[in-house]
């Protein structure tokens, strides 16, 4: 198809111009709004890595506890709970580690706490120490006989 007159396609040139304007606007918007750190390490905002790494900490970690509470560590490390970290029972205590005086941790209620691990359940590994607490102690609180930091009863320990 031959163009007898360029004027007959002039409206298409105007249209192309309109598209070009839209494209330029898009590129300008893109330059403005794409976050500066985007693409630094991959197809994501590089700053996100540091943001994620800076979130607040709530569990101090047992190494931190042991720095001050070495006496407990002494009792624990040769007992059955040697592998149980402090905060597994005492809960998150980073705030206490930060400022020991102002944040005083509450002692956990052994009646509830111990049962979570040691109440008998068919799905627990057979060799894991578990009891039916009603039969085992008849409602007596665990701490009455067991020392939580070294719970295995020794000959001569209180037993009722």
């Amino acid at each position, binding site marked *: *198809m031959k*163009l*007898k*007159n360029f*004027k*007959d*396609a*002039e*409206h*298409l040139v*105007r*249209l192309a111009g*309109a*598209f070009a304007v*839209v494209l330029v606007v*898009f590129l300008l*918007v*893109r330059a403005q*709004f*794409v976050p500066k750190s*985007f693409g630094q390490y991959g*197809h994501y905002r590089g700053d996100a890595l540091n943001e994620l790494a800076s979130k607040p900490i709530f569990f101090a970690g047992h190494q931190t506890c042991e720095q001050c509470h070495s006496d407990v560590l002494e009792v624990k490390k040769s007992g059955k709970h040697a592998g149980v970290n402090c905060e597994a029972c005492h809960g998150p205590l980073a705030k206490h580690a930060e400022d020991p005086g102002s944040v005083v941790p509450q002692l956990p209620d052994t009646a509830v706490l111990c049962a979570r691990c040691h109440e008998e359940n068919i799905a627990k590994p057979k060799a894991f120490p578990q009891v039916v607490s009603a039969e085992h102690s008849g409602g007596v609180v665990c701490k009455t006989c067991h020392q939580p930091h070294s719970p295995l009863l020794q000959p001569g320990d209180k037993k009722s």
Partner: protein
Amino acid sequence: MPVDGFMYPNEIELQWSVLIVVYPFVTGLVAGAFILASLERIFHVEAVKPTYRLALLTALSFLLVAPLPLQLHLGHPERSLEMYLTPHKTSAMAMFGFVYLWYLMAVMLLEIWLDYRHEIVLFSQSTTGWKRLLYRTLTLGSSNISKGSLRVDDRVGWVVTLIGIPSAFLLHGYVGFIFGSVKANPWWSSPLMPVVFIFSAMVSGISIVMLIYMAAMKLRRQPIDMRCVDTIAQYLLYTFIIDFALEMLDLIHRIYEADESFRSLDFMLHTQLFFSQVVLQIVLGTVIPILTIGFIQIFDVPEKLRRIAYVVCGCLTIVGIFAMRWNVVIGGQLFSKSFLGYTTYKLDLISREGELVAAALLILPFIILAVLVKILPPWTESQAGFVPEPSVCELGKEA
């Protein structure tokens, strides 16, 4: 707890709501309506010419509404521009943003503009007030409607329609791929998914244009061109047969191979999804239209009955295809990925992703269409009021 059996704790609440059912339904109508329009332009099926412009405007109306359910669904709609600023090339959803943009700008708007240009220029000269401003803007400053320029429009428009066909397939095939590429979900993951979506889109798009055409002619107290509607119904039948074959193929394949997901999916189909899949989608939405239109091809059915049959079949088809989208999207989230349980979908009436919003989104395209029909009338009869003299029109169409 609305859980039957076991579900991973985070799976109990559905992630994609009815709005994500509306979305593929609407884009499907776009693609289907466009394919019907292209039947005349590219394949010279003269009989369907009366619906050409109407089909284009219908496609545009639905295309404009398509992003709305997505925006309403997003947790942060204000960040949606990110899909265009930093699209992730491995994400089908991100790439779809560009496919949509391409289809809107380079296909729909361009084709409509080229087809209507000489009327736009004439209206820009004959109307007054805000209408004049509107039409003048649409002319992009050019008032050339000489024979030569209209011939250029026709040729370029033909190329745009030609490109538009694979673009329409890409538009809705992509939506199918968004689901079909999720290996985590065996109800979705299938290479057939894009193809099934395309053909069901064509079925729904053809039906909606047929229904809108018949309704518009009734509203304008004009006679319905039966040769046109009969031809549309024929194409609907051919497309339906392919669509049905594909869906049956998927079903038979699943039943035969019976992989780890089969028992769970099969149970879901017989219980939670029974009404929407078996009754609405398959029986009412597919089998009955196929049998009815098929019957009309073989036996002589009087015009009045045919009209009623087409309206009924058209409506059943639309409902059936909506049900199909529901079955894919909602169905895909009702069962656990552990294959050990099911949850339920709680559809609220009044909420950002509730029934009322979904209904409003389905009605909105018709309102937009009514406005578009006023601005860009699809009919060239002088009844429209401000349509120019026939001689100019004839000149333009000579090419």
